[in-house]
């Protein structure tokens, strides 16, 4: 497809392109093309955005809530909110990824309001070890590692936790993180450095 075809695309072309996305010779569809198509009402394009970013959103949410099922429900809720707000979205203001994670943060705040924040200041020794065989899909080691990560996060200040989760779990750039957190990229780099130092000190403390 030529550039002008992209400009003059219609739903039929897009749907065909999306259905054939697994073929090696189909170019990667950029976010802004998918977004434009989704804004035109194409759910298949929105489904592609979902597949592209659901993992990152899920990790962000699962790092903040204390069970997987809540994180699953919230992930779906975030994308439904995104879909509903698409008519109001203008890319010039905020890149899509930052927009998506702003909505994820709001969904998380609403979740906290409903059920209260996760427990904080919990020592890893106080955490219950899951009963029974965790099954081959989830080893006991990975379950403990997750608890270790969660405990570490819960001991951090809220802004330190947010910057680390956005940067290293959700893989946002400093610029995108800055957009989500409403700060400048420079401020995010400083915050990231301090958060990493705090995390390192805490890990040292836990190991002692």
């Amino acid at each position, binding site marked *: 497809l030529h550039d002008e075809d992209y400009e003059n695309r219609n739903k039929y072309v897009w749907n065909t392109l999306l259905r054939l996305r697994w073929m090696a010779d189909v170019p990667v569809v950029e976010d802004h093309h998918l977004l434009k198509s989704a804004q035109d*009402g194409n*759910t298949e394009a*929105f*489904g592609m955005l*979902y*597949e592209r970013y*659901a*993992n990152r959103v*899920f*990790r962000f949410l*699962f*790092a903040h809530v*204390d*069970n*997987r*099922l809540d*994180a*699953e429900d919230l*992930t*779906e809720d975030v*994308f*439904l909110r995104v*879909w*509903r707000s698409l008519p109001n979205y203008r890319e010039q203001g905020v890149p899509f990824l930052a927009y998506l994670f702003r909505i994820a943060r709001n969904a998380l705040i609403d979740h906290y309001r409903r*059920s*209260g*924040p*996760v*427990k904080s200041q919990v020592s890893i020794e106080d955490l*219950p070890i*899951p*009963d*029974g*065989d*965790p*099954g*081959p*899909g*989830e080893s006991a080691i*990975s*379950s403990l*590692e*997750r608890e*270790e*990560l969660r405990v570490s996060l819960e001991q951090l200040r809220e802004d330190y936790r947010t910057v*680390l989760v956005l940067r*290293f*779990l959700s893989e946002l750039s*400093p610029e995108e993180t800055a957009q989500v957190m409403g700060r400048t990229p*420079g401020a995010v*780099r*400083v915050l*990231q*450095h301090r958060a*990493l*130092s705090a*995390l*390192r*000190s805490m*890990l040292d403390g836990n190991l002692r």
Partner: protein
Amino acid sequence: MAEQSDAIEMILQDCLEKIQNGQSTLEGVLAEHPDLAEDLRPSLEAALWFRMHRATLDPRPGFVAASNRRVLEKIQQEQLAKTQPAPVAGENIFARIWQVLTGQRQLVFQAALVFVLLFVMVAGSGGIAYAAQDALPGDLLYRVKISLENAEETFTQGEAPKADLQIRLAQRRLTEIQSLIAHERLGDIPKTITMFEDHINRAIHHMIAVRDLDQDRAAVLVASMQSVLQEQVGIFNQLAEHASPTLRELIDRIVLVSNGVIGLASETLWTPVRRA
């Protein structure tokens, strides 16, 4: 002082990017900045530790695909609801009845289909509906089978019976896949796996509702689901030993999803709910 601090932040960011892109290692980037190595090392090590734990927060296998379908279904339902006109006061009674009927068109048609199928079943045992029970995905009668299942789902009341039904339907999909493998009809397997994943996800959501009301009942359902899946995983593992690479890939997906769900059940549903 502020400038020096800002420089460290920039260098730290640069080091992180180099490590992330595989252009260098921890020791490599520290060697590039020997003067700052002592300051940079703790932060870089913390970042690596954090990144190393990332996979522990990944969604369970099959979740993204199944939830994507659920979200798109909800969106389509919302779109459909928006396009239906609101009833206007003073319209003639037949028009309003028609609006009510078309507003719930799917339900009305489903109910009509159920009555027709029930009639067919009652009137002619050994007829179409009966024959449909053995239909496989891709067969002419398979739609009848699915319609009957949808009807059963519609008329099943209560979260526990609904969860139980979804577990049975998930098991049915897996036995259908085994039949498809026996008949070498691999083309019909992927969509059947998708249906299996949907049943499992619905079962989980019903079980969450049960768990909040009656943990013992939820535990029984979880044990039932785990038992079904463990048995099926055993069968599919045996089938995989003699499978072609294409078939093995499909079987791997089933096993991965099943094991993921078994793990999830142990982790979240089986243990008491932790409230904040």
